[in-house]
């Protein structure tokens, strides 16, 4: 392999580039990024970055000099199309790049809602530029309405409360964050927001948004409308695959890969964009938008690309995500839903501490913890080992 192109210059793409070099790839390496910035870390953008004291240079994802990576960085350019036959991608500038090996790490982009079209007081949050805009708005406005109580929405709500804003969170589902995991976790999450002064409303349907001067009026079905100075639309993200339509790659809410992250001969995927069957969960088809997954898949995709061997190992992982809100660390690993049996295995005297584990097919499949990182990680190891649920219950972790 002489020339590798990585499309996507964020966490998965960068860690893939570094792994390619570590694994001994000495050919030409090009990384294409849609944003003008060098690779940076996204998790702080919904948390401490939005407060005044966080320095932008702490976001840098690579501390070592880029020269040592010996890669060409094409930033501020999107990939427009892929030809698998010609082994070539076309960029938004019209420039064409040939490759022997291709890494698809284009991530995801915020979903929007048709009701937000043309409303200037509506923002989304994904990129550093988005975060800079949001930070500016939070500094000089008083009332924010967050639509969607997923991770991003919940974290921004918590940060905005910390900055002293009036915060309303509107969620279509019946609980915030880890949706559908049942009433115990759902109520704990909801109470966290409410006890910190957030007006959290669940099961809400928004009819329309109206821009009225500097304010936005949010019209809610069956309730009186509310006015705010700023709306954050945080209704999830969709994988960036438009540029691959017609390429011949299988697309289905992500790029469909085999268990080794290979999408086609010489083409691998990593990060939010990759859909693959995870052997640790009976081959369940997954697409995971979490930070640690982007790192692990970036490294795995590099090794897969450099191996011609059809017996290359599959990518297996226990998905892990963390969040911080109001000083509470919320961590979740594996798979869980309200349908699964759940047992609370630990709850502290201080009621902010809680660990619950979930069962599927007789095994421990998931864990959720509040301010219990040690126990979450120990249960995560049991999930990875395929431990029987009863064994996990009996383990006094």
């Amino acid at each position, binding site marked *: 392999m002489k020339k590798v192109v990585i499309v996507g210059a964020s966490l998965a793409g960068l860690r893939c580039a570094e792994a390619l070099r570590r694994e001994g790839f000495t050919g030409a390496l090009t990384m294409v990024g849609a944003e003008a910035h060098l690779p940076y870390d996204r998790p702080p953008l919904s948390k401490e970055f939005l407060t005044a004291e966080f320095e932008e240079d702490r976001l840098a994802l690579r501390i070592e000099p880029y020269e040592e990576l010996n890669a060409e960085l094409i930033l501020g350019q999107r990939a427009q199309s892929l030809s698998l036959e010609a082994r070539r991608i076309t960029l938004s500038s019209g420039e064409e790049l040939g490759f022997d090996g291709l890494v698809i790490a284009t991530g995801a982009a915020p979903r929007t809602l048709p009701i937000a079209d043309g409303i200037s007081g509506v923002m989304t949050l994904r990129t550093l530029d988005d975060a800079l805009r949001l930070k500016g708005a939070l500094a000089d406005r008083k009332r924010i309405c967050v639509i969607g109580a997923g991770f991003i929405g919940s974290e921004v709500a918590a940060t905005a409360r910390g900055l002293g804003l009036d915060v309303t969170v509107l969620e279509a589902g019946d609980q915030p964050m880890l949706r559908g995991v049942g009433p115990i976790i759902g109520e704990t999450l909801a109470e966290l927001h409410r006890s910190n002064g957030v007006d959290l409303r669940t099961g809400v349907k928004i009819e329309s948004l109206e821009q009225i001067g500097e304010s936005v009026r949010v019209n809610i079905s069956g309730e009186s409308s509310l006015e705010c100075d700023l709306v954050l639309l945080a209704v999830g993200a969709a994988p960036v695959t438009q540029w691959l339509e017609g390429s011949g790659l299988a697309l289905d809410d992500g790029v469909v890969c085999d268990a080794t992250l290979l999408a086609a001969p010489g083409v691998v995927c990593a990060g939010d964009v990759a859909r693959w069957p995870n052997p640790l969960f009976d081959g369940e088809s997954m697409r995971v938008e979490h930070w640690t997954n982007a790192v692990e898949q970036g490294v795995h995709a590099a090794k897969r690309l450099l191996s011609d061997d059809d017996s290359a190992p599959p990518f297996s992982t226990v998905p892990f995500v963390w969040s911080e809100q109001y000083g509470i660390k919320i961590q979740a690993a594996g798979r869980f839903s309200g349908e699964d049996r759940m047992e609370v295995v630990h709850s502290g005297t201080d009621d902010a501490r809680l660990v619950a584990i979930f069962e599927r097919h007789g095994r421990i499949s998931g864990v959720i913890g509040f301010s219990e*990182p040690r126990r979450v990680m120990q249960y995560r190891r049991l999930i990875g080992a395929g431990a029987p649920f009863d064994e996990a219950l009996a383990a006094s972790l």
Partner: protein
Amino acid sequence: MKILVNFDLCKSNAVCMASAPEIFEVRDDGYLYILQEEPDETHRAAVEEAVRLCPTRAITVEDQAL
């Protein structure tokens, strides 16, 4: 190799504990403890994974001069 942790950055997510449980331990007090500050080479792959997967990039490895 010598393990260095920047405790100003560490947020005790305990991801390192999943990669290298013999080296890192987050205890119930919420703090990270380094169980072996100078582990032998058999731990290198696990430690390097912990470095890569640390969400706050708080861990570094210093190689002793030969």
